[in-house]
């Protein structure tokens, strides 16, 4: 075998090795990018959940506000949180029931205020599900 033939063999092996190395590198980079994307998604989800928890806690506090508009806003905020985070639904229902149980005894008799009517409506609607 002459020198030219050897040179071609070496070149061909170099091409094969280079290709394999390139594929390996591309695969590794792809995996790293995928891991990074997953981590970003998880991080975003954690941040959204923290925000929802903050909204939930603040709304629960606002339920005991003296002003009707603040209490009503709290009820609607709680409802909005449950729309994005279903796991807050049952705790929210229980908070609202506790509110009716513990707080309404302080209210005067007469026409039902808008926040209490809204909470009652939420409970009536939620009650339809157990038998369905």
């Amino acid at each position, binding site marked *: 075998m002459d020198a030219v033939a050897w040179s071609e063999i070496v070149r061909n092996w170099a091409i094969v090795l280079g290709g394999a190395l390139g594929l390996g590198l591309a695969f590794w980079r792809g995996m790293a990018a995928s891991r990074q994307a997953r981590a970003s998604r998880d991080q975003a989800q954690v941040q959204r959940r923290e925000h929802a928890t903050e909204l939930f806690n603040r709304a629960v506090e606002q339920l005991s506000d003296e002003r009707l508009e603040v209490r009503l806003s709290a009820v609607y905020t*709680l409802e909005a949180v449950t729309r994005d985070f*279903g796991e807050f*639904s*049952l705790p929210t229902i229980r908070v609202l*029931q506790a509110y009716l149980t513990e707080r309404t005894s302080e209210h005067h008799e007469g026409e039902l205020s808008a926040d209490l009517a809204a909470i009652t*409506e939420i409970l009536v609607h939620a*009650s339809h599900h*157990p038998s*369905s």
Partner: protein
Amino acid sequence: MPRIILPPEDRDKFRFEIPRARLPGATFDGANMTDGDLRDANLTNASFLGVNFLRTKLRGTILKGADLSTAINLTPEQLAEAIIDENTKLPEGLKHAAE
């Protein structure tokens, strides 16, 4: 109209529990109060059209002037524990039991 939808895994955990609540004139039409707890609640003049009262606890519940005319699964025993008056509208089958 505010609504909270319970996820399927939580639906069986829901009970209508508002003991001691003071909600005169409230509307509960169509609610499912199965195994619920309304003990000592003041629900004077409230509306309970089509409400399911299966095993609902009504001891001491004030139902004066309430409309129970189309309520279902309400028993004489439950009514005997509740506080009603001549203005309470009862289902046909229970009017006699209340007298």
